[in-house]
């Protein structure tokens, strides 16, 4: 009972946060929300199922382009419906890419996802008739009329934040639910030892494909939110740089907990905002921090906090086992 009160209170607080922020900071908060969702979905793939994707920007970009094209060609589709359609587009592309990728393991998997994302990048860049190439596709989200006569204006950062927060919370809840299902547990098993999982009778291919598709769906929603807020989607959303950033954000926060990547994203974006004012060479500092986290803090920044999830305990147990076996 007390726990649910805390959760409810913090949610209300999250909706009220914008009143404490100026416009600039509100924009940063909006950025944290969609990149946070992106990083959490990446971690469903890497942290839970052990699949390190180097081409994770692919479905993020697909979501962005999908929602842009929906509004361009189908008119003023209400934003929840448009997001759902973008999510479906992400699921479809995710299932297609996943069908080829999840058969492979380790580095082979990473490289094949990279190949697919580079291919999609080239499509976004060169298929000018649809994507408008380098110029980018303009995304124009229509305002949303809520029951009760209230209009959510997409041009208004505060209104956008409320909408985005709702969508992100729903997605995070879905992700959390997913990790609690037997399928979510099976995903953990895939990471630990997929050969043994196969011997135990688990459908390794099927499980991995479902996780890949689900993660891609959430990434597409994040991409669609990104495009709606930026009002523009360019091939840069699909490129290696975006695929790199999400790895940094997720691992910085910690792959061992569902919300670890969200923390990582928050730190990453705040740090980047601050560092880029101090030095133009901020990527060096971020890279250094990343290397330090990989070297010394397997559980990421979230590992600094006392309470830990099951996954975190598992990681710790493995770490101790690794030390003992030396």
């Amino acid at each position, binding site marked *: 009972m007390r726990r649910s009160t805390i959760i409810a209170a913090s949610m209300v607080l999250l909706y009220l946060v914008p009143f404490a922020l100026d416009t600039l900071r509100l924009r940063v908060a909006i950025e944290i929300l969609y990149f946070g969702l992106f990083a959490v979905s990446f971690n469903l793939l*890497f942290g839970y199922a*052990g699949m*390190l994707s180097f081409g994770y920007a692919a479905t993020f970009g697909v979501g962005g382009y999908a929602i842009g094209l929906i509004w361009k060609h189908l008119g003023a589709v209400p934003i929840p419906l448009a997001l759902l359609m973008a999510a479906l587009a992400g699921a479809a592309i995710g299932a297609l890419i996943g069908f*080829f990728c999840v058969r*492979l393991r*380790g*580095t*082979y998997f*990473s*490289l*094949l996802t*990279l*190949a*697919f994302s*580079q*291919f999609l990048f*080239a*499509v976004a860049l*060169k298929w000018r008739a649809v994507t408008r190439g380098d110029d980018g596709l303009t995304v124009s989200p229509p305002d949303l009329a809520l029951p009760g006569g209230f209009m959510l204006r997409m041009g208004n950062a505060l209104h956008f934040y409320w909408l985005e927060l709702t969508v992100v919370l729903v997605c995070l809840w879905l992700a959390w639910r997913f990790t609690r299902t037997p399928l979510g547990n099976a995903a953990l098993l895939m990471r630990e030892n997929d050969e043994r999982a196969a011997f135990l009778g688990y459908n390794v291919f099927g499980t991995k494909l479902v996780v890949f598709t689900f993660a891609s769906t959430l990434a597409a929603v994040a991409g669609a939110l990104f495009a709606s807020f930026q009002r523009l989607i360019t091939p840069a959303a699909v490129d*290696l740089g975006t695929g*790199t950033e999400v*790895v*940094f954000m997720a*691992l910085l926060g910690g792959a061992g907990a569902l919300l670890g990547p969200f923390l990582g994203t928050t730190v990453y974006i705040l740090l980047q905002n601050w560092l880029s004012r101090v030095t133009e*060479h901020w*990527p*060096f500092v*971020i*890279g*250094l921090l*990343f*290397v330090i986290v*990989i*070297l010394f803090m*397997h559980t990421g920044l979230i590992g600094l906090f006392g309470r830990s999830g099951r996954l975190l305990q598992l990681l710790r147990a493995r*770490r101790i086992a*690794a030390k003992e*076996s*030396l």
Partner: protein
Amino acid sequence: MFGLSVYATQGLHGIVYGMLLFLVSSGLTLVFGMMGILNIAHAAFYMLGAYLAYSTVVATGNFWLSLLVAPVLVGLLGALVERGLLRRIHRFGHAYELLLTFGLFFMLAEAVRWIWGNYTLQVPTPALLAGSIPLLGSQYPVYRLFILAFSGATCLIMAAVLLHTRVGIIIRSAVSDGEMLAALGINTPLVALGVFSVGAALAAVAGVIAAPFLQADPGMGAAILTDSFVVIVIGGFGSLLGALLASLMIGELQSFGILWFPAFALVFQFLLMAAVLVLRPQGLFGEKG
């Protein structure tokens, strides 16, 4: 639509770039075969080579000196990375090793921008090799022919060492079965350190050689990175012969791709890589499935 000499020149150009790519990919594929690590920082070693060549030329005016300076410095850096960083996290699995080299690449690339600036630096072609000679019906720069000869010679030396010396036998055994080799009393961590470091030095040599041809550019690491990934996937992880053939293939593919389908030159090699990974994940000459 093009004259025969254009094809010949373009073909030769493809071989030149292919051989350069081989110099970079050979170290990458050997390290992967031995240690199971896809060393992303390898591309940064290559970039460092080019920039060290620039600094050496600026400081001493002697391009050839950089062929000594760059590999030694970068080889040391490679040894430091292997011994000081990679070995520490070896027990956490390949994914974390991969991520570590990823972070290192990011750091080194930014460090290069920091030290040398975020713009292209011209490295002059050494006077000995400047100019062009008539070849295959057109004028061809002598320096590119030098790249060809130099990489070819390096390739032969590497083949000789790997096939006919004791060290070569040890390295090949380490690629095929490191545990067995260790059981036979060979110090495999030392072998790994050596191969990693020599691989880094080779990447730096490639960078030095590439510098007068492609110039020292902050984006050169990322550019060669994806190309060399494609090469080692197609050739097969751990296979030098595969890397050689795949490098030449990619060189020609880019060379003629730009000529015929400028818009899709980039797509081809990734489609090829995807096709190989899907149909034959071990690559053309790889052994592991």
